[in-house]
């Protein structure tokens, strides 16, 4: 349920205080009567659409607000738009779509161009976030997930004899409700201010794993989350400079502190009958920012940005264990978590001459964890007391220096060269300091010619300080190199070609390639390669047939090594993705009949091999067809016919054919594989007022 909050009135009050306007007068020259211009007049318009339809849904991957209705069967919806434009340009507008469906949207706008803009919108989004399945848990007694009274615990799922009778269907769904309020004001020619408020409530459920050592269960977690965001800002604009001051606040609240659940297995130690997971804690983020730009010199442009922020979280800590036999003390009662952030950037660009521009940029980022570090006795999954662990205040600082030169002679091409050096320092990680140097060049052909071409080559090399034994977690293989810290060489290339032909014919080609080499890592990621190709061909004009064909291919290859360095293993994976599509838009196919058609096909394949053994192939297939026809029956009345077809299939050996008790030590959801077909037929009637 959305909770009332004091922020909206605050927002509006702030906005009203800033309201006010003084208008600059720009007079047209004498004799410019604009006799051919439409007379400024009050204009009103409205459009109302009533729709009825039927869907065989739900389909998890549907892209359509109507087709993604959660329940199959009949549908009825209302779309509308009302607009009023005053003679002085003021616009009042109301939009609504999908009223009556699972994803309604409503928006209001009041705009006086150049003076103020007020907006409000409401949106609901529903989606099935996880695969459906079955569970033996049910929510009772507060937030605790319980098993049936006659539940028979066992050491493995296959021996849980009461499981078949206890299973109930569970379909995780999430609903987001969003409220947005905004106000922008101009005060005089120099001042602008804005206020934004965003509220999001997120409800529903999802699967969450809970474990007792290596015996786990999928738990249906209930969600009741909310986030409030407030952004305030004031800009001052002078002839040659601009300054902006802003403040951002984000408050996150979770109505549930923890998730408790019954242990479905035979307890590994006395008292380990139930477990408790800490859920996302309430937290808040503050940020104050100052930005400015100077453009007073005809060749010099300076801009800078400074943002100082703080993240806070002080949730009361849970007990270290629900096990009454294991009750160590915690060194403090609440998290006292705090992170200070600092981001700054200064950029200068100088136009040395007409063809040459140089730019120098420095950026600093700092995320400094200020949470007190203390030793916490660890109760391992409510079963036994393990070693004490210190919560390490991980932090990083990043400095980037970049230089870029743009050289554009009196020719339809230009050359760009860039050089960057980035240093990153991290606390408490296996590598304290890393540096990356990047160089790139781009050649771009552009002009009035129908051909536009760009080609880019890049090279980057990362290295840094010696690897040390990470402080946490203990026991890490000393030969392991985390891929975000490891030495790396990266090469990339990109090509873009656009050709504009006669009669609106356009051809676009894109190619991307990137190769990352981690061969200095004895254990961990060794290589990553990505490549993609894309092509589009389109043609036609607004008055005839508009058409578009597109196709793309992408692949990613990863190689990694694991295990002891002398007797290790390696794995290779290859992901492929192809997509094809066709769009047709034919106004006036028949008298007063417009038709649009969109079809897309997407397929992916994943192959993973370990040494010489290959896992089954991962596959997805998605067909999507959307056909819309509009018949302009009367000057004010249109009929709209809509047919949508989607088919989604997948083969995923990590999930398929796994009953809840297929894994001896994971009580799973038994989610079936996807093989879904959706048909949607809708008929709408629109009336223009």
């Amino acid at each position: 349920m959305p909770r009332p909050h004091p922020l909206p009135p605050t927002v509006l009050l702030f906005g009203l205080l800033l309201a006010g306007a003084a208008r600059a007068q720009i007079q047209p020259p004498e004799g410019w009567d604009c006799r051919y211009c439409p007379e400024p007049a009050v204009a009103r318009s409205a459009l109302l659409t009533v729709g009825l339809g039927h869907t065989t849904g739900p389909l998890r991957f549907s892209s359509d607000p109507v087709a993604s209705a959660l329940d199959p069967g009949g549908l009825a919806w209302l779309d509308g738009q009302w607009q009023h434009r005053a003679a002085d340009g003021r616009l009042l507008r109301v939009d609504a779509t999908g009223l009556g469906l699972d994803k309604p949207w409503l928006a209001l706008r009041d705009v006086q161009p150049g003076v103020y803009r007020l907006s409000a919108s409401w949106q609901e989004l529903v989606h099935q976030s996880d695969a459906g399945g079955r569970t033996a848990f049910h929510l009772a007694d507060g937030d605790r997930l319980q098993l049936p009274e006659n539940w028979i615990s066992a050491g493995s799922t296959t021996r849980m004899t009461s499981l078949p009778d206890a299973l109930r269907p569970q379909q995780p769904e999430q609903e987001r409700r969003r409220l947005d309020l905004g106000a922008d004001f101009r005060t005089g020619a120099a001042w602008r201010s804005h206020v934004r408020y965003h509220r999001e409530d997120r409800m529903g459920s999802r699967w969450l794993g809970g474990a007792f050592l290596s015996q786990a269960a999928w738990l249906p977690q209930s969600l009741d989350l909310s986030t409030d965001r407030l952004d305030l800002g004031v800009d001052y604009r002078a002839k040659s400079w601009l300054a902006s001051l802003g403040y951002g606040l984000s408050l996150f609240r979770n109505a549930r502190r923890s998730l408790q659940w019954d242990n479905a297995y035979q307890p590994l130690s006395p008292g380990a009958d139930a477990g408790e997971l800490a859920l996302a804690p309430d937290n808040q983020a503050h940020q104050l920012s100052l930005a400015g730009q100077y453009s007073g010199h005809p060749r010099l442009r300076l801009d800078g940005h400074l943002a100082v922020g703080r993240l806070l979280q002080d949730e009361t800590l849970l007990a270290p264990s629900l096990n009454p036999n294991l009750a160590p003390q915690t060194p403090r009662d609440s998290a006292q978590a705090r992170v200070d952030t600092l981001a700054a950037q200064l950029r200068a660009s100088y136009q040395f001459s007409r063809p040459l521009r140089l730019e120098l940029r420095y950026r600093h980022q700092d995320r400094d964890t200020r949470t007190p570090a203390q030793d916490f006795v660890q109760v391992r999954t409510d079963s036994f007391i393990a070693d004490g662990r210190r919560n390490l205040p991980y932090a990083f600082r990043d400095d980037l220096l970049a230089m870029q030169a743009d050289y554009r002679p009196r020719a339809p091409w230009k050359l760009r060269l860039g050089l960057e050096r980035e240093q990153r320092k991290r606390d408490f990680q296996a590598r304290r300091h890393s540096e990356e140097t990047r160089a790139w060049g781009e050649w771009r052909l552009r002009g009035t010619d129908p051909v536009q071409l760009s080609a880019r080559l890049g090279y980057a090399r990362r290295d840094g300080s010696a690897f040390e034994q990470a402080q946490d977690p203990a026991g890490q293989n000393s030969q392991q190199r985390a891929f975000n810290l490891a030495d790396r060489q990266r090469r990339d290339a990109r090509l873009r070609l656009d050709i504009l032909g006669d009669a609106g014919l356009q051809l676009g080609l894109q190619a991307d390639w990137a190769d990352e080499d981690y061969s200095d890592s004895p254990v961990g990621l060794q290589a990553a390669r990505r490549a993609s190709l894309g092509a589009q061909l389109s043609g036609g004009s607004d008055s005839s047939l508009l058409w578009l064909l597109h196709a793309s291919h992408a692949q990613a290859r990863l190689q990694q090594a694991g295990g002891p360095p002398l007797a290790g293993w390696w794995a290779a994976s290859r992901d492929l993705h192809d997509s094809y599509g066709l769009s047709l838009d034919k106004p006036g196919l028949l008298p007063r009949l417009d038709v649009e058609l969109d079809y897309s096909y997407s397929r992916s394949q994943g192959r993973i091999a370990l040494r010489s053994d290959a896992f089954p192939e991962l596959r997805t297939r998605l067909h999507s067809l959307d056909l819309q026809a509009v018949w302009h029956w009367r000057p004010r009345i249109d009929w709209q016919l809509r047919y949508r077809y989607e088919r989604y299939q997948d083969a995923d050996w990590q999930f398929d054919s796994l009953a809840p008790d297929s894994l001896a030590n994971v009580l799973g959801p038994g989610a079936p594989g996807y093989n879904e077909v959706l048909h949607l037929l809708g008929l709408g009637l629109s009336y223009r007022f």
Partner: protein
Amino acid sequence: MASFGQALTAWFLGLGLLLPALAGAAQTDEGAAPELSRQGADSCLRCHDESSAFPVMAIFATPHGQRGDTRSPMAGLQCEACHGPGGEHAARRPPGEERPPMPHFGRHASAPLAEQNQACLGCHQDRTRLHWSGSEHEAGDLSCASCHRIHAGSDPVLERGGQNAVCVDCHRREQAESLLPSAHPLRSNEMNCGDCHAAHGAMQPALLKGALPNQVCADCHADKRGPFLWQHPPASEDCGLCHRPHGSAHPALLRQRPPWLCQQCHDQAGHPAVAHSPGAAPSAMLSLRSCANCHSQVHGSNHPSGALLLR
């Protein structure tokens, strides 16, 4: 390492000194200032009505065409407020003589990009465009009119449901990725590209909004923000280390499936070091969410006993 650093310094100095020398002296365009047309918009609309190759009348339904609003270009220098003086173009000419072109806007337009964009930025300069100069879009030769439609009744890129179609006109790879089974809802326009990206320039790579990495992700995923008592360092550093934001064939938009994704960083004594081979019996280490079957608090834990992200 030191030699590489020296080489880098030399590159910086070299580029800074060499290129200006190559570029030559600054050039200025001198000449008589062009004249305005005699009758302003009437000069234009006499030809550019709805039957012309460049119909423009729809602008009168937009803020730019409001004569009653003194800030609107149509209340001032009218068409020439943006297109520049049109005296030459609109002057009387013998039949058949070609008229000198007016500056027009768009990806394939003849006018220099800087001039096109300055026509817009002269009025539309504010905090959201602070980083436009030197941004990827500016350096990539985009003009304002590459994305915005001024003479249309409504500008698709500013309309709900219209923005993504404009972006994918160039960003085809991202469009293709949005068709993958695990993706942000870009196809359905429940999210706009502009929810995460600042098209007019940003501090972050890929024009991401926010002063720091992850900031824009936390706008919708504040439950992953923490700060937690027990952090998972890559989750605090950059969501993009594990996730592909536009779409993935793997669950939860992951770059790679667990356990291999996890094993790219974790190889500890015990089960993570094991080579999980395909076998006859399904393995808990490989099936379902793999590592996250147990280590479900992968973004961080606030439990006193949550050091291993099990609680």
